[in-house]
């Protein structure tokens, strides 16, 4: 799989994403700088986590207006795969490529810990290596991951199976306690209608080797590779 990682000023998980993609795909991803106006022809573009532009004004707002983003949107328009993790998810909602918005965590505090996610849709490009309903561990680290969409949008993405991951407890129940940020319907990650764009707050790229405490994040990347075959 050919991939590329976009770096914005103050992206800080770009190297983590780059390394994870390189380790899992065996190919060095391309690097896209936020001011690049065209992007290489790849199977996947990743918008990494971090604090693009300091997260000033709104998380992801300034990044969503940078030159490279136009090319990313064009790639998505052509049906190319795009993932946004954490700050990348915020950028995708700010771009309007994914519905809703990510608000300040309910606690108002930054939260970094390992949470449990339930795989909601085993058929998607991004989840097919997992089983339906499987509960996986993935770390979160964010200040603004509280997913909000109006009722109509929410109903639509639920009905369409656009919810990829939900925060759950160890038994797989989407309880309030299992929700680290107050997201509606415990939503941790969503896809667009066409199923080629995904945004999620948790960081699969941080859990791909035993030394990191587990490998539950690998399935996410393996899914994308599978979907290309």
């Amino acid at each position: 799989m050919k991939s590329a990682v976009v770096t914005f000023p103050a992206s800080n998980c770009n190297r983590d994403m780059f390394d994870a993609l390189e380790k899992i795909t065996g190919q060095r991803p391309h690097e896209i700088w936020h001011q690049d106006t065209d992007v290489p022809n790849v199977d996947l573009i990743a918008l990494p986590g971090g604090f693009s532009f300091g997260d000033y004004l709104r998380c992801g707002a300034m990044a969503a207006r940078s030159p490279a983003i136009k090319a990313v949107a064009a790639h998505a328009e052509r049906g190319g795969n795009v993932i946004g993790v954490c700050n990348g998810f915020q950028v995708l909602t700010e771009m309007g490529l994914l519905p809703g918005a990510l608000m300040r965590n309910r606690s108002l505090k930054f939260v970094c810990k390992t949470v449990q996610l339930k795989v909601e849709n085993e058929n998607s490009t991004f989840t097919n290596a997992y089983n339906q309903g499987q509960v996986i561990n993935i770390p979160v680290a964010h200040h603004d991951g509280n997913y909000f969409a109006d009722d109509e949008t929410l109903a639509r993405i639920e009905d369409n199976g656009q919810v990829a991951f939900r925060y759950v407890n160890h038994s797989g129940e989407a309880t309030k306690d299992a929700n680290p940020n107050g997201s509606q319907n415990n939503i941790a990650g969503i896809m667009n209608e066409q199923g080629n764009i995904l945004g999620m707050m948790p960081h699969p790229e941080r859990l791909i080797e035993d030394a990191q405490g587990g490998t539950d994040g690998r399935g996410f990347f393996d899914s994308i590779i599978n979907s290309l075959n």
Partner: protein
Amino acid sequence: MTEIIWENNPEITEDLVKEHGLSEDEHQLMIKILGRTPTLTELGIFSVMWSEHCSYKSSKLHLKTLPTKAPWVIHGPGENAGVIDIGDNQAAIFKMESHNHPSYIEPYQGAATGVGGILRDVFTMGARPIANMNALRFGSPEHHKTRHLLSGVVEGIGGYGNCVGVPTVGGETNFHPSYDGNILVNAMAVGLADQDKIFLSAAAGVGNPVIYVGSKTGRDGIHGATMASAEFTEDSEEKRPTVQVGDPFTEKLLIEACIELMSTDMVVAIQDMGAAGLTSSSVEMASGGGVGFTINLDEVPQREEGMTPYEMMLSESQERMLVVLKPDRVEEAKKIFVKWDLDFAVIGEITDTGNLTLNWQGKTVADIPTQPLADNSPEYDRPWVKTVAPDTIDPASVAAPSDLGEALLKMVGSANMSSRAWIWEQYDHQVMADTIQLPGGDAAVVRVHDTDKALAISTDCTPRYVYADPFEGGKQAVAETWRNVTAVGATPMAITDCLNFGNPERPDIMGQFVGAIDGLREACTVLDYPVISGNVSLYNETNGTGIHPTPAIGGVGLLKDSSKMVTIAPKNDGDILVLVGETKGHIGCTQYLDIIEGREEGAPPPVDLEIEKRNGDFVRAQIQNGSVTACHDISDGGLFIALAEMAMASGKGMEIALNNGDVPLHAYGFGEDQARYIISLPADKLGEINSAADKAGVIIETIGVMQGNSLDIKDAMTISVEELLGAHDAWMPSYMSTES
């Protein structure tokens, strides 16, 4: 000599000199160095350079006695941060620094800028920062300011560290009334560099350009350095000097830009602008290289209009660096900073005069010989009296609690011993994807990217021990970091220290300082664990009440094979638990005595450094040869607490029977004797370990086995792990969710 222009210059009266915190002797010395009366700008420069914070005038004499060398030390104290060799041409670079006073006035920004400052000390040497740590002390939980300060400081550390993308992997947090009016916020940063790419601050090359990069200069924190050197009074809170606001976004850009710049061969010298900003950076670079600097202040990027030379030189605006470039490389360097959207200005050049010459609006406003300014800074041998150590308390004289299990629950759920997850969950401790031991263990462990190596880091100090007996307490602080680093399987390499004390002009406080330094020296020497960087913060007092003396130690160790690392959580039922070290039931100065008996009394546990070394070397060897499945050192709260912590970390129970002889069980279980560990191992390794201990002359004893769901200690308690966790996890979230 250059003609000094006096226009717009107030008369330098005695009052003005005093206001600048300079003594009469220092005033005369300044006149002697200059050969004339200073200008206002010059007075400002002398006052900050000779402040306690920058000149170490009260502490230098004693700091010099610390051991700073070892074959693996590349740069010891004297640089922005210390540097050690970790093999394969790689170096670890680290330092710890205080930001106490600013954090008390504005906890969020004070702590945030503390993190920013220590990161700059590390990346200015060419390192990519890979880990942040902190050591925090707050007043009593009942004090009306404590919640506000705790929440602001933690948010500030997270707000800055999370944004710049350096994981904050650990630290320590204490509460004690002695910090009610003077909290301590000590931040440590660790970075990685190639040994042949380390950058120093000594300037060289007459004619070379001096470059200013980063943020613009505003009127922030003018006199921050002198504030850090003055005692607090009630109304210093009212004066509210312009607080420095951190801009982590700019810092992140600055890190990336500097690393990019330093990957070329353009840089002659580089130095961050820390305390006393442009003044200390230019003076240190010039005096360090034996050259002069001419600076045209009109070229300094300014955030506000009408700034005077005095203000520009004393501003502590954040996120700025000073760089000396090779000639003809300015355009090339500028491109990098333009790419990262940072200010870049040529503000001067290197001269052969040895002077710092400042020009502004066509006039010379200062012209100071830097060598005497830096080298002849005052040095005091302050009078001191030795602290009289309290008597040792006989364990038999302390009555047993009515229920040992209840005592344990109370302790694991107390302010000082409860879980700090509320804090570390606000820090991104996993960014960079190399954190292989998360907060909550004995030491944080971060991999050296793309290698099998890892660094173990721990910050420690037990201020109540240091207060009771500065010498033993000083030893203990060093020994505890050494033990923590050992407990994950790493080889301790070196320390940084952050020495927080009260007013050095008081002989009793100076006695604490001297005693603690003596203890540090002895421990570092015996443990072969040199001091490679550090910081001194004095005058931590409010209205004449000093803090508990707090020499916070940051220790760093190396794991050559990170797959050998262990945590405090035994993984398998049936694993045998072995106690390493001798237990005599030392009860004085313990958490038990404080929390259960309400007594802060007695001599602290003595530290026998020979035994410390022998036991630690034994434990490390067992971890490194793969015999051990988990390890935890025994410190605050003693054996019972250490066992409870292991049970909670693993979520598993244990069955324990202790051989306490004639030591009362509560003293045996809660005593804080030093040099001890608990290790867990598969039953089939027991024979091997026993003979290894015999051979090494280390006392070990099998005390139990992992099994069930409860901590079951014969004749003492049976408590479910769930109940322990309930008490342990509850305190801080519940404390922070109640309003004061």
